[in-house]
């Protein structure tokens, strides 16, 4: 065998060397992996990691649109701390996120439990439930805008016809009503995601657990509290992290419905940073507002991460 191979090598003296180096290079997993990872990593570095770092840098400068700025340290942040509008926006964002997330979770979970029961046309209902999530937010927000219009709101009209109120409700013109309206619209859009993902989780819970609990005389609340909820904790943690993350950084719904008005009552950090940076041209200040969102987001991620860890520890496989 080796003789034959040697003979072959002898006939072509240079190729084996080059070929073996090529083989070594192309056979090396790390090199291969670099080629495979290149497109994705290039995209993520050029348009995600670099802009993220650049945004943090911008937030320490006084850059305006069209003029390169200078490093001013924490100037933007110090200025923002004294800016009542920024404080309002932070409070709004926290209220919006907390309110919307709680309602989304409760109603979404409830809907998931309902959909997990025996139902006629189950597949159809499940398909229909996802619709608000499929349709672009900006477009459904326009429908809400029309439903909540100050003059031609169908809700006002219906309530007037029944005789509950005698004048139109100014949904988007009143501060508190506007806040409630945007939360409602956000909950409306977020319920399907939570319901369908939790439904997928519910379907993995073995029925025998409920049967055993029923025989032991458990009430339906006890079954929910002691079986459904613990079994679903990991998936709830992930779903709620995403939900909180996307609610906290909500932009398009607010922009279409209220543009942050009336009088900044519905301005979130994202909309305020858009107003300051793009409409006002204060790129540095706008970036500072955007960067100020990051600690909150990290906090939300950490909370759900530790929620998951706790679950793993309870299951006894944290080794």
């Amino acid at each position, binding site marked *: 065998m080796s003789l034959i191979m040697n003979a072959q090598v002898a006939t072509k003296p240079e190729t084996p060397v080059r070929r073996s180096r090529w083989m070594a290079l192309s056979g090396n997993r*790390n090199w291969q992996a670099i080629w495979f990872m290149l497109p*994705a990593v290039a995209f993520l570095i050029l*348009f995600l990691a670099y802009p993220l770092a*650049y945004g943090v840098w911008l937030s320490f400068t006084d850059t305006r649109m069209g003029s390169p700025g200078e490093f001013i340290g924490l100037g933007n942040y110090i200025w923002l701390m004294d800016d009542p509008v920024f404080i309002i926006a932070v409070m709004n964002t926290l209220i919006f996120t907390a309110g919307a997330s709680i309602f989304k979770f409760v109603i979404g979970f409830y809907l998931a439990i309902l959909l997990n029961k025996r139902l006629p046309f189950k597949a159809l209902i499940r398909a229909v439930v996802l619709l608000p999530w499929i349709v672009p937010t900006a477009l459904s927000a326009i429908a809400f805008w029309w439903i909540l219009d100050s003059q031609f709101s*169908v809700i006002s009209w219906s309530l007037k016809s029944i005789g509950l109120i005698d004048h139109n409700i100014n949904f988007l013109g009143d501060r508190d009503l506007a806040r409630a309206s945007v939360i409602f619209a956000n909950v409306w859009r977020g319920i399907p995601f939570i319901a369908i993902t939790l439904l997928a989780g519910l379907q993995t819970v073995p029925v025998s657990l409920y049967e055993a609990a029923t025989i032991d005389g458990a009430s339906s609340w006890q079954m929910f509290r002691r079986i459904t909820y613990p079994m679903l904790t990991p998936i709830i943690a992930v779903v709620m992290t995403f939900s909180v993350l996307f609610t906290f950084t909500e932009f398009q719904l607010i922009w279409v419905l209220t543009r942050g008005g009336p009088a900044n009552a519905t301005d979130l950090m994202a909309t305020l940073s858009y107003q300051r940076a793009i409409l006002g041209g204060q790129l540095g200040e706008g970036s500072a507002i955007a960067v100020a969102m990051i600690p909150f987001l990290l906090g939300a991620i950490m909370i759900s991460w530790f929620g998951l860890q706790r679950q793993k520890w309870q299951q006894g496989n944290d080794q």
Partner: protein
Amino acid sequence: MSNPTEATMTDTSAARLGRKIKSTPEGEGMDYLETLPKRVVYLYVPLTIILFVLLFPFYWMTLTSFKSTAELTDFNTFNPFWVWQPTLQHLKDLLFGSHYPRWLLNTMMVSVTATALSLAASVLAAYAITRIRFRGARFVGVMIFFAYLVPPSVLFIPLAVVVSTYGLFDSPLALILTYPTILIPFSTWLLIGYFKTIPYELEECALMDGASRLQILLKIILPLAVPGLISAGIFCFTLCWNEFIYALVFIQSEANKTVPIAIVTVFTDGDNYRWGALMSGALVGSLPICILYSFFVNHYVSSLAGAVKE
């Protein structure tokens, strides 16, 4: 004599049993224990209310786009919950009197291209992470997951600057190149899950036969991962269609806008909103995605479920 009767009796009881088992298939547990009135109160009533609220905006959107302008603002003569004088005027204005077809085309083109780019990049990345097992594969996987958690509203300001320094401002290319940053992390994550379910043995056979990694990926893994590819693809397409803030910031000229941006910025100028045009614009803009959805409902559900799985 008694034997046949007994046989028929057992047959019928078996049939009854069979029917009963059929009516409560597996996974629905002990629902048969609930009585009808209880089911109405605890299941049908709340479900109907939730479904009504979830679907009403779409009903309203559809109604409004077929109502005449007079009917739109006069609720007292015309009950608003139905169309009394249907008209196609708004749709006609939309399709022939505005740039709407152009916007639809823009959205379609941007979504398809960005989805294709992201899928190609994610397939390669997901394969490398699951199968090549290079040094740092886990780390890269975790980093990609974190990339998924970076929201566009944190990135759009620096991205606007980056996009204009690359000379892409106001060009569809700006969207085609930035959307993959939202799509790649998600679809890589989803595909990693799919690739993990494909048995190693298939790949080992191909390696023994001298296939290269790329050949294995294209000829063995991809055909087996088609459901995953469809899930990731339609999910990406939906996200592109829905994307708002990048398109709002990076695109200035009316001809290059995407549907959501165009409707919000072009149709709402001035004090007098053209509700008919707005609603028909929103309706037509939602239709393509709804049609796609109706064909791939199960893929959407599985991609959603896959998105939150570890």
